[in-house]
């Protein structure tokens, strides 16, 4: 099968999920008007929002995996999402209300937290010339713990209502209504996708290792900083709006690589489409499992992602 065929099949599959998801669990509502309203004001924006968020998370994971040459390295495992979560939680706690270039305070807080986390983890990894991927992952784990305890600290100081809201938000959810969140997220994800497509040749060469990438003519430092900035912005915006939804960025790009190969000119569209469809599917599951109540989608993705992480770990150990 050619890459074009595979990509078309993935698109069809994803489109089918996208078309069916809004109607799932809608059958038992008799009133046509209520039904219409739920469909257009809640389900449709939520489905589209899930697609955009899922695509963004998957693509950021793909970029990290390429930059660090390891499927276990993602914005979540390296503590970037925790940094973003803390940034967002702190903004809520302090009641900051600034906005810059159209971004609200929580997004800016999450972006700053994400950037701080990645600078820290990357800085540590550069302390030793011959750092291993294990060192990097452990630094990520330590960073996650550090930010998690800071979040707990913020929660502890908050009143019971804020504290509960932070907790729910930390579980990762897509319960939005209306189109405002979608319109907020879409330009950021679109910008990130644009940057990634523009850098797809560089991403291919980064997979071969920094030395080879540099000798082929890639200005590795500049490309890496640009990608850190872009992924921090993207992860920050998603975390600010949905909370940390784990493991999408690990599972989706890895599966896509197995399906379509490592060439980013194909991998980027495949990851975008699959990531979007995958989060819609998880969100639909989250809505239906304990209906009429619903689960935060982060619980579903993490339940799937944990075993996947272990599988990757065992597999990479065996081949090493």
């Amino acid at each position, binding site marked *: 099968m050619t890459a074009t065929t595979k990509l078309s099949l993935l698109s069809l599959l994803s489109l089918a999920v996208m078309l069916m998801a809004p109607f799932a669990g809608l059958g038992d509502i008799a009133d046509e008007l209520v039904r219409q309203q739920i469909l257009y004001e809640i389900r449709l924006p939520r489905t589209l929002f899930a697609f955009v968020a899922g695509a963004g998370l998957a693509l950021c994971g793909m970029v990290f995996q390429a930059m660090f040459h390891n499927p276990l390295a993602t914005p979540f495992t390296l503590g970037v999402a925790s940094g973003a979560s803390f940034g967002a939680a702190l903004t809520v706690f302090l009641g900051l209300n600034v906005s810059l270039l159209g971004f609200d305070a929580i997004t800016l807080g999450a972006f700053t937290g994400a950037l701080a986390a990645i600078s820290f983890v990357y800085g540590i990894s550069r302390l030793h010339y011959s750092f291993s991927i294990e060192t990097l992952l452990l630094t990520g784990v330590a960073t996650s713990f550090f930010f998690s305890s800071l979040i707990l600290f913020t929660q502890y100081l908050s009143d019971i209502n804020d504290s509960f809201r932070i907790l729910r938000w930390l579980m990762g959810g897509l319960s939005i209504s209306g189109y405002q969140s979608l319109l907020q997220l879409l330009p950021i994800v679109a910008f990130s996708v644009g940057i990634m497509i523009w850098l797809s*040749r560089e991403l291919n060469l980064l997979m071969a290792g920094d030395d*080879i990438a540099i000798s082929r003519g890639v200005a590795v430092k500049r490309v890496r900083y640009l990608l850190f900035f872009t992924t921090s912005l993207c992860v920050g915006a998603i975390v600010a709006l949905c909370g940390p939804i784990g493991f999408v960025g690990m599972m989706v790009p890895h599966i896509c690589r197995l399906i379509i190969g490592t060439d980013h000119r194909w991998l980027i569209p495949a990851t975008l489409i699959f990531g979007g469809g995958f989060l819609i599917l998880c969100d639909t599951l989250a809505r239906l499992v304990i209906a009429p109540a619903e689960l935060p989608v982060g619980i579903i993705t993490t339940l799937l992602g944990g075993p996947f992480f272990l599988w990757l770990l065992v597999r990479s150990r065996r081949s090493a």
Partner: protein
Amino acid sequence: MIEVRALHVTLQEKTLLSDISFRLNAGDYLVVVGPNGAGKSSLLKAMMGIIDKDSGEILFHDQALSDYSQRELARLVSYVPQSSGRELPFAVEDFLKMSRYAHHSALSEWQPDDQAAVEDALRITNTAQFRQRQMTTLSGGESQRVMIAAALAQQTPVMLLDEPTSYLDPHHQVEVHRVIARLNEQLGITVIEVSHDINHAGQKGRQVLALADAQAVWQGPGEIFLEQERLQRLYQQEFVFVTHPRSGRTIALADPL
């Protein structure tokens, strides 16, 4: 065409290269020798812009390395790294195509001369028969030839090779050296090769730069390199010398006694 002046490189307070100077003309073949940890690989990495220098000058065509963008430099110099053992997730031909990066902008299309460069590289290194194979399935010798082919597809007048024959059996060592010699003699590519093979270095037509403890301890033409006192000081090892029965060349052997 290449000039290195008083090059000094440190990394985390460790001196990797100290006061290294040499000049090469177009078409020269320089073999960099010396004991492990002498700074041979660092020299190549500094010349490729992979590690930064602290002081001194590296000039290509009388223009400082720092005045080239990484992309411009990659049209002038290519690099075959020491075998890292890391598995590269590409098919051979795709990996070679990626070498054309420096000849492209983000939007430019694949051109016939790009394909020609890839085909030439496959032909010269005798790797065309496994162009479709995944890099992960190649043997050590095949993979080393593909790494050279990929650097060759970059079509640069200068090539840096870091121990291209280590980990290879005698047959593949000879084959890889034959490929490099062909690049140098027939295509006029200026070659700088790091090697532990002193007999390969000590040949007519080669320049030798001997490094020890980050410093240049000797440089000169290959045919006078193989000399007892020099080798003993360089490697802290006794050598015996024999004459090759067929070529008549002097061969140095490390003497275990």
